[in-house]
């Protein structure tokens, strides 16, 4: 399901619901409190700001989040990108997630990184090692090859013509309530939530 802004004029952008209840990931270490803040305050907050920034600008309000990400800069880009990034991120997690991928995604990971373990090591390093706010991504490049990339702050791989497969939010708000400053522990919990079915669909 693509993320489309409501195309009717004067209809504001809306924040997609979480794909699961707020307490769905609590057993895996991402608490109800975190998801409540992360989705209902941060994610929804970006949408609220985007509506305010595009008020009276019908041409912008007619665009999808993806279109805004590609065409805009500054505050509008930040809000559109962070909205899109968070929607993608929450879809990358599942109460039934974890384990390892299968099928075409598994093959692509094995052939690109050598093994799932090596991919996991590199992705973890990217997530843990990012300086400041940002995201770690598994993407498919324009050349069709898988790659691990980091983006800073609101950065989104769509601007580089890459197709996101997986996202890990490493802004402090993603993990501070549950893990305080221990980002590595958060990333471990993230692995246990990874929705490989969703990731496989992005290939």
């Amino acid at each position, binding site marked *: 399901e693509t993320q489309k802004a409501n195309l009717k004029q004067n209809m504001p952008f809306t924040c997609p619901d979480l794909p699961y209840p707020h307490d769905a990931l609590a057993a895996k270490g991402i608490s109800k409190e975190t998801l409540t803040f992360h989705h209902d305050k941060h994610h929804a907050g970006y949408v609220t700001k985007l509506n305010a920034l595009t008020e009276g600008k019908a041409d912008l309000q007619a665009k999808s989040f993806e279109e805004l990400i590609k065409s805009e800069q500054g505050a509008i880009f930040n809000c559109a990108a962070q909205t899109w990034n968070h929607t993608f991120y929450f879809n990358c997690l599942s109460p039934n997630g974890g384990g390892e991928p299968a099928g075409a995604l598994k093959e692509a990971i094995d052939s690109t990184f050598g093994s799932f373990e090596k991919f996991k090591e590199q992705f973890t390093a990217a997530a843990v090692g990012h300086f*400041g706010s940002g995201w770690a991504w598994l993407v498919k490049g324009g050349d069709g090859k898988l790659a691990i990339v980091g983006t800073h702050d*609101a950065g989104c791989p769509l601007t580089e013509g890459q197709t996101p497969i997986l996202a890990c939010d490493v802004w*402090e*708000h993603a993990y*501070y309530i549950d893990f*305080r400053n221990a980002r590595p522990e958060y990333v471990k919990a993230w692995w246990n939530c990874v929705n490989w079915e969703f990731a496989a669909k992005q290939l």
Partner: protein
Amino acid sequence: MATSRVLQSFFKQMSRPTGVVGSSTRRQLSAAAASAANKAHSLPDLAYDYSALAPVVSGKIMELHHSKHHQTYVNNLNIALEQYAEAEAKNDVAAMINLQPAIRFNGGGHVNHSIFWTNLCPGGSEVPSDLLAEIDATFGSLDKFRSTFNARSAAVQGSGWGWLVLNKANGKLQIQTQPNQDPITGDVVPLLGIDVWEHAYYLDYENRRPDYLNEIWKVVNWNNVAERWHAAKE
């Protein structure tokens, strides 16, 4: 801890057979290691208890912020500098360049937080009259200064800092924001920094950075800010 790591790396170099690490290189490495050990940075103590700034900033945040976040910047700065000294001793410019982001990030974190702790005190302080006059002349009033400072600091995308600085080129006070842990550099002197990384406020203010910015002024140590300003003007 940093010293023993430096010595470990020194002995690792020394244990290689001759020809891999020649004697002049060994002398350079030992000098670099000794120099790095002398310059090892350490976490400065706070002038007040962790709980002393509550309820503006809770003891829970102060303890995490100082003993975990700042300590980690210090530890990682020391490691990066040690590695940099080794790379420099081997004239490995590529390795030196590769270490620069870690030095910038961790070094900036150490510099910034070291200033920050001195900018705060239990109950805050009045603004000394000469500094207040300068703030009035520059920004119109203390209130106008704070609201501009808060607006600009709230608007920092991602992680960063809001600063009151002295621009030495024109002698004027200015408001500046920096991203990530980039320190104030150039012909500009940092006087007052407010950390707007989420870790600085999240446990008390959740996502409400503007509320944190409204409250923090209650614990700003303007005497320290004025001391820095006087020193910067010399």
